[in-house]
């Protein structure tokens, strides 16, 4: 009965007068229903894989929990321990901030420089984009981290070249600064995606701007600061925000290059690595949850600060949305 009714409606869809009336009568209601129907997977996923875990971790951050016995309420102890007793935590913050403050600018400056260099009429411009982007494509993999570790290793490519040139070998992984420097270089090496975004931004700057500037006698450098930079500033801003957030939580390179230890002397103990150690080596889930919330607040604050500074230097595109 039900099925036959359905099929007759489907069959007569075009000529069935009621369908049209039904559509117009409650179109707002119908839109609400079908709108939520279409986005329902997102809502379910958002609640079950983001909101619920976040709420759980907030709860856990006020508890001691080792996954075996039931959670034990400790109030703010996890947080006070972090900031007053845990010198490794302070060290990991230092490492992470140093990493973010060096890797992000280095990566973006390289990206911009290369974008400016290859943004020219050339038969090879397609090839350039592919070649310079390739490291970014494979950059997140374990294989590349292993490769990087061996390039800078005691008997690796760099030291091999040094020996050939008659120089003393440099033990990159014996000193805190140089070990972190190797990680920063690996991040800078993957400037490709930012470069592509800058390139598409450069293509959108009308050529007339430069022609007009030329007529006014402005030199290349002047043109760069008066036309290129202001036009690119929204893209630059977007890149800074996204890269900063990502860099705060870099994991794989530090994990592979230091064998999960953050060595030497915690010189490469980036924040995620320390959270990982606390959670999955020591099984201090409450403590690790507290750490996740601390870095979330830090990242949130830094992002807000970036947005606050944006009105002083980011050139807003009027008219376009």
């Amino acid at each position, binding site marked *: 009965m039900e099925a036959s009714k359905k099929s007759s409606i489907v069959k007569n869809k075009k000529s069935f007068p009621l369908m049209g009336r039904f559509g117009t009568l409650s179109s707002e209601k119908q839109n609400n229903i079908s709108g939520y129907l279409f986005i329902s997977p997102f809502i379910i996923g958002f609640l079950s894989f983001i909101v619920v875990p*976040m709420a759980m971790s907030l709860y856990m951050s006020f508890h001691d929990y080792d996954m075996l016995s039931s959670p034990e309420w400790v109030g703010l102890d996890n947080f006070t321990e972090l900031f007053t007793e845990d010198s490794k935590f302070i060290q990991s913050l230092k490492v992470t901030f140093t990493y973010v403050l060096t890797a992000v600018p280095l990566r973006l400056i390289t990206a911009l420089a290369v974008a400016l260099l290859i943004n020219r009429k050339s038969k090879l411009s397609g090839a350039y984009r592919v070649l310079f982007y390739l490291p970014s*494509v494979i950059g997140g993999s374990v294989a590349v981290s292993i490769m990087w570790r061996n390039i800078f290793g005691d008997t690796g490519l760099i030291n091999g070249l040094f020996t050939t040139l008659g120089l003393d070998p440099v033990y990159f992984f014996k000193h805190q600064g140089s070990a972190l420097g190797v990680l920063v270089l690996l991040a800078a090496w993957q400037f490709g995606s930012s470069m592509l975004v800058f390139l598409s931004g450069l293509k959108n700057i009308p050529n007339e701007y430069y022609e007009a500037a030329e007529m006014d006698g402005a030199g290349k450098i002047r043109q760069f600061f008066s036309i290129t930079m202001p036009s690119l500033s929204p893209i630059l801003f977007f890149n800074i925000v996204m890269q900063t957030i990502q860099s705060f939580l870099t994991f794989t390179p530090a994990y592979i290059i230091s064998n999960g230890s953050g060595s030497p002397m915690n010189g490469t103990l980036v924040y995620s690595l320390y959270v990982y150690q606390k959670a999955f080596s020591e099984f201090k889930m409450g403590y690790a949850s507290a750490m996740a919330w601390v870095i979330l607040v830090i990242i949130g604050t830094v992002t807000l600060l970036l947005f606050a500074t944006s009105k002083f230097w980011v050139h807003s595109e009027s008219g376009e949305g």
Partner: protein
Amino acid sequence: MEAGRMKKIIVDVIILICALLMLYPIIWLILSSFKENKDIFKTAQELIPRNWTVQNYIDGISGITGIPFTTFIFNSLKIAVIATAGAIFSSAFISYGFARIPFKGKGFWFACVLVTMMLPTEIIMVPQYLWFSKLGWLNSILPLTVPSYFGHAFFIFLMIQFIKGIPIELDEAAKMDGCGRMGIFIKVIMPLIKPAIATSAIFSFYWKWEDLIGPTLYLTQPKNYTVSIALKQFLDSQSSSNWGSMFAMSVVSLLPVIIIFFLFQKYIIEGISTTGLK
């Protein structure tokens, strides 16, 4: 005119040299994998192997703890394909709702998409682990695949942009022909957003293929290891003995990524240029 041409050629040469320097580490890795194991670090500064050999590949494919490396490749492929299929179809479905249907609370939910996009997954690594352990999903591929079936914020964002570029008249014409929302989505929208779907599929595959932390947390039995964990295990177990096979397997792990890149670079480069995907 002649001088201008000369200058152009010189700049091209300089750029190509820069590109070559950039790619030097990768070339070094690939050629080193064909060196004899004992030579790799003795001749690190030399690019071309003195004696070419594929022994490293033969040793590497034999795998670790008796499990051949091909098993790890299969495991990685399985997770990447299952997750990618879910991610692209759910994201397309969701993005149609956001792009074309006016409904109450849309602004709020779209803001949630943006928040998810900005939220680094590492933040929820610990709570998700606890949550999946409550669900009894540990030691399975479920934590690595099921969440993909509920849309991925980056892909939703990308596809919304794409759908907004499709003339609404096409939707209306289909509606006149008697198509419902679902019909419009399947018959009109899906075929037209193929490029965005391709871009999303490629990135989803890449992220899953390269992922280390997820498989490390959720796959504890060696027979379920992915390529990423297997390489990490190589690193741990063979720290001084057999670098050659580790280099060889590293190259193998990069092969699918590089092949896909060269086949579909158009989609990849367009995708990043519009969204700034990683």
